[in-house]
Structure formats: structure tokens, C-alpha cells
């Protein structure tokens, strides 16, 4: 397609976060796309055999989080993406942080489940990602988060 050579890493935890990434696939597949997720078996069900495994983690598990950060850095160094995007949650946020370290452009798309306020990682992404988008129009601002529609 038009920009088929742009290398993109798309990361999401299993469950609803991954489902939202899959709903964006029609666009993601136009690029040199690589996936990372906490549940590669679910990715395989979607026909993605080469997804990298991220350890699951959250803010209540510091050791798991540290491990996840290291694995995210490893995955980013392996693929050297020009763009990193995530629909959540914490493991995807670590991929965004790792992406920043190598100079990738980074985009956080906060889950459509967060209609009342941004998720914790969404709030961190307001500071650390190049772009932070909400999927709820009433939460959108001029800067971070911005609103550009929703997966549904």
C-alpha cells in the first residue's frame, strides 16, 4: 500500500485491549506491522503466528512490571519500529516507553471501556507518548487526550 514500508509495533494485553487492536487491523495491515501481546495463543486465533509475548503486569506487581519493561525493551530493540501504538494496558505502555528510547513515534489509544476518565496508563501516556487519544468525545481536549473517533 501507500506507505507499506513504515515499521509499526502494535501492542496490547489479551482480552478487550487486544480486541480493539484487532478492530484497527484493516489499517494496521497496510504497514510493516509487528504485534506484541500477553496472550500469543489468542493472537494465533486471529491468524497472527509471530506475535511477541509480553509478561502480564499491573501497578500492583512491581517485580512483574520490571520484567515486563525489560521484555518490552527487548521486543522494541528486536524490531526497531518507527511507530509504536498501544490500546492498553500496562504492558503496552511499557512498549511505548521503550519506543521513546529508540526514537519511535508513539501513540496511546485509551480503551473504549474508559468512558468516565482515562485509565492510569492513559494518564501516564499524556506525559510520555507523543499522542494520547481517548475514544470518547466528551473526554477529548485540544492536546492530550485528543478524540479522533472510536473502534466501534
Amino acid at each position, binding site marked *: 500500500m*501507500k*506507505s507499506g514500508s*513504515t515499521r*509499526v509495533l502494535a501492542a496490547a494485553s489479551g*482480552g*478487550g485491549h487486544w*480486541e*480493539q487492536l*484487532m*478492530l*484497527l487491523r*484493516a*489499517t*494496521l495491515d*497496510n*504497514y510493516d506491522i509487528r504485534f506484541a501481546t500477553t496472550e500469543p495463543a489468542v493472537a494465533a486465533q486471529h491468524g497472527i503466528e509471530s506475535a511477541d509475548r509480553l509478561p502480564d503486569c499491573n501497578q500492583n506487581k512491581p517485580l512483574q512490571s520490571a520484567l515486563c519493561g525489560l521484555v518490552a525493551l527487548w521486543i522494541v530493540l528486536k524490531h526497531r519500529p518507527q*511507530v509504536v*501504538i498501544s490500546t492498553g494496558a500496562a504492558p503496552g505502555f511499557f512498549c511505548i516507553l521503550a519506543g521513546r528510547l529508540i526514537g519511535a*513515534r508513539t*501513540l496511546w*489509544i485509551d*480503551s*473504549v*471501556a474508559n*468512558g*468516565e476518565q482515562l485509565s492510569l496508563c492513559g494518564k501516564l501516556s499524556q506525559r510520555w507518548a507523543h*499522542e494520547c*487519544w481517548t*475514544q*470518547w*468525545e466528551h473526554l477529548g481536549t485540544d492536546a492530550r487526550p*485528543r478524540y*479522533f*473517533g*472510536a*473502534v*466501534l
Partner: protein
Amino acid sequence: MILVTVGMQLGFDRLIAAMDTLAPTLGLPVIAQTGKGRYTPQHMDAQAKIAPAEFERLVQQSRLIVSHAGIGTVLTAARFAKPIILVPRRAALGEHRNDHQLATVNQLSGRPGILVAMDEAALPARIAEGLAVKDWSAVQSSTARQLHRALAAFIENRPL
């Protein structure tokens, strides 16, 4: 088959009881995930919890989903292009801690494949509409088109 779900975490007996009353009139088997409710359905094949893999298989087999306004179920229905009827939980009736499901249905109402029944009285009409929905797997909502366009612009480093 019609699949009814209120998630696993909370009961939503108002919806379960209404669907149990309607079930004999629908001409299709009805399977329900009743969560932590107390009502015991008489006319539906009911389980408190359905394991995720099994739930996904049931979604695939269903013609219509009737659900509380939980985003997880909406996403699963979208993945398999199944029509879904959403009934919002109401805080005033003790069905959730607040009325965020009302906000959810107000936002999602009218998007492809999504129907809203504001209360149980609206269910028969919505179910008839839902069963009449034609294949909408190729239809994209305007909000989804907007997000896909913005995502492509970001990846290609074009102005948003």
C-alpha cells in the same frame, strides 16, 4: 439461538427475568449467563458463569445477543459481526455503582449492529429489529472510519 449476558461480576435480574418471560415467545432457544443474580430462569438455559472460550463459541453460534451495556461484550459482538441489544444497568435500582452504562448506550446508540433498549419494556421491539438485521460485517461506523483515518495519518506522519 439468542445469547443473553449480564457479565460475571454482578447480577442484573431485571434483564434476566424480562428475557425469561419473553423466551417462550421468541421461537429460538435462549442461553443466558446470569452472573451473580438470584432469579432462577425457567425458560432459558442459564449458567451463572460461562468460561471465556465457551462464551466466544456461543457468540459465534448466536443470531442475536442481549446484554447489559458492558464494553467487553460489545467488542466481542463486533468481532463476530453479531447484532447486540444493550440494556443499561441503573444505579437507582442497585444494578451498578453509577450510571456509566447509560452514558455508554447514549454514545453507542445507532452504530452498526448496536440496538439500545432503555428498559425491559422496549425489549420485544428491539429483539424483532435485531433478528431482522442483515449482515453488517462490512459496515463501518462513522466514528470507526474517523479513527482509522487518524491512525493512518499518525503512522504516515501526516497532519492529524
